[in-house]
């Protein structure tokens, strides 16, 4: 297989983008990536999108977006794996370049979520859970993650304050990210006194509903070196699944798909958790980040809460987690989040992150997750 590099990235301001349609958001972001890469044509494209049908009444977006980007007739593929759609699109794009089938591949993720009411959005997101065994009983994602939180608190003594600290940390990082939906700092007290959503999770524990897109251009590393650009390679990719219903798991505090995806990615890259300089993880809820840092091997099982409290995951800590602000502060346009994580890591490794730059970063990781952890995709990046 060929070595693969990310040679261009694009992301635009996320938020409630009422004046822009799905195709507008996508095209402006994809054009930025093409410009950043210095290419004007692509061989193929992948689009991560969880539910353009339920959110925007539009399916068949792979062809639609190729058309509106002016790239038809290139082959275009939509990838769906709930909130891991973006991460999985990246994996598919990687495989296409690595295999030698294409040279220039555009990988992007997009979701337009605010054209429907809160109830409709909650329903659309809920379709990522087991509709027959979970949805049928009325539970939605805040409820599922609340169950994980309660179990983690009981089993490991994780505190309500530690959950809040995840949010506080991510907002602090996000306050320096110009594309973030909520680029401001918050306090532990604000989190603890915010509106209750599903006990113990409050609204400031939850990632928001967001319109947004992110794009990245993949290219063979050997050819990228000849272009004289900074070369950030994808050196590891891992992907695993778990039971879709939380109730089927032996231990709901453990994200086995993340653990297995990371194991594959570490093995492929020949790296260990200690080698990683920065990581972007799927903090759809504060408890998720705590569980993910454990499953990725950055801290021992049950120590994820303690890690954030001790500042180990802060931007100047031992392993900076979510320097972009994460899903919590940057926003969570579900199909785009996995690609946006890669955009952040590439920018960090290139040294393009200004105020939120983690100095001397060479190796970065992304972890993108669907549902309550039924799908996980992990990538490891390295700057030459």
């Amino acid at each position, binding site marked *: 297989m060929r070595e693969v590099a990310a040679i261009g990235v694009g992301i635009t301001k996320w938020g*409630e983008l009422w004046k822009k349609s799905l195709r507008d958001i996508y095209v402006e972001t994809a054009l930025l990536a093409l410009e950043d890469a210095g290419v004007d044509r692509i061989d193929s494209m992948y689009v991560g999108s969880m539910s353009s049908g339920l959110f925007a009444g539009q399916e068949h977006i792979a062809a639609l977006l190729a058309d509106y980007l002016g790239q038809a007739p290139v082959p275009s593929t939509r990838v769906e794996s709930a909130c891991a759609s973006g991460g999985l699109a990246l994996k598919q794009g990687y495989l296409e370049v690595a295999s030698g089938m294409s040279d220039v591949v555009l990988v992007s993720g997009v979701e337009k979520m*605010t054209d429907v009411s809160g109830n409709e959005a909650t329903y659309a997101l809920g379709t990522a859970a087991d509709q027959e065994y979970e949805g049928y009983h009325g539970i939605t994602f805040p409820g599922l993650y609340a169950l994980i939180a309660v179990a983690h608190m009981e089993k490991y003594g994780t505190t309500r304050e530690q959950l809040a600290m995840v949010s506080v940390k991510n907002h602090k990082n996000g306050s320096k990210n110009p594309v973030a939906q909520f680029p401001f700092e918050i306090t532990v007290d604000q989190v603890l006194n915010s*509106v*209750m959503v599903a006990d113990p999770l409050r609204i400031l524990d939850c990632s928001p509903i967001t319109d947004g897109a992110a794009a990245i251009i993949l290219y063979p590393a050997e050819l990228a070196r000849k272009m004289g650009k900074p070369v950030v390679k994808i050196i590891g990719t891992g992907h695993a699944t778990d039971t879709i219903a939380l109730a089927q798991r032996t231990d709901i505090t453990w994200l086995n798909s993340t653990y297995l995806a990371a194991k594959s990615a570490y093995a492929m890259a020949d790296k260990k958790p200690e080698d990683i300089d920065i990581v972007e993880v799927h903090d759809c809820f504060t408890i998720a980040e705590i569980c993910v840092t454990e499953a990725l091997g950055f801290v021992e099982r049950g120590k994820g809460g303690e890690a954030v409290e001790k500042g180990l995951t802060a931007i100047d800590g031992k392993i900076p987690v979510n320097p972009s602000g994460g899903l919590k502060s940057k926003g969570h346009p579900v199909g785009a989040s996995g690609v946006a994580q890669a955009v952040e890591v590439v920018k960090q490794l290139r040294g393009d992150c200004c105020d939120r730059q983690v100095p001397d970063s060479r190796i970065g990781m992304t972890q993108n997750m669907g549902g309550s952890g039924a799908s996980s995709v992990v990538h490891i990046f390295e700057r030459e």
Partner: protein
Amino acid sequence: MEGIIGYGAYIPRNRIKVEEIAKVWGADAPSYKKGLMLEEKSVPSPDQDTITMSVEATKNALKRALIDPKDIGAVYIGSESHPYAVKPSGTVLAEAIGATPDVHTADLEFACKAGTEGMFIALNLVASGAIKYGLGIGADTSQGAPGDALEYSAAAGAAAFIFGKENLVAKAHETYSYMTDTPDFWRREYQYYPQHGGRFTGDPAYFKHITGAAQGIMDKAGMKPQDFQYVIFHQPNGKFPFRVGKMLGFQKEQIEPGWLVNKLGNTYSGSSPLGLTSTLDISQPGDMILLVSYGSGAGSDGFIFEVTDRINEVRERAPKTRDLLSKNVNYLEYGEYAKFRHKIRKAD
């Protein structure tokens, strides 16, 4: 010069607290109290409607204007809860106050800005010389679906303004309207409760149109926020008027006298007009007042008034708005409220 010659308010005496509504729906009362700055709202009695409240408010306006109702040449009631789909509210009112038959009347609807539309038309007909006096009213028995966020704010009340060219209480210096097609809140025919676009009702709707109208009228008049003693904005909840005021450069103190929503709720077409009545109640000769309404759909009407010496003469002739709000109130339980609002009906 034209302007207001008499003003009057009416607020039903029944109230229901946010906690009482939240209790029924298992909702989080503190989030409404803190987040939206709402405490309680007015509730009409079973036999009260837009017409009866308009009559009450107009009688109070007549007490201040001291004119012969026969000289009123036009009557406009703005409301989104006219009791009849077909049959005017204005005819009943005109008959009740003795203004018929030499009078023009029309019922207006533009979500929460129908009241200021009536004021706008009546004032400008007076200015044109077509009529001697004009009456503009904003009144609503607002609808909010059970359990919807609107149920915590949808309230009842009316404000009436009589416009003329002599014996002015407040001179009208400027009017300005700002409007786009923005569907943030609507109710179709045969539907009992309105639907709304959630957070879409904020930035692209309320904030865009109020700032557009306020900035437009201030530019037209060559005035700045500091030139006004008081400002009244539409009050769908407690928070929005302060936030839009801050965006425009107004201080809290300029907004507070007309800010009734925490205890009154959102009286839809009556909301900003009632705020104007409570502001006139405390204003002094020479005070400049800016009024900016908001109606979903969407648009805002702006008015600049200058209070005259006559305010001190007329103020005490009719009940003051804050007295109507705080005196003789009757707290309802949800069951009584549901009956009063015809949410439940007795079997035949």
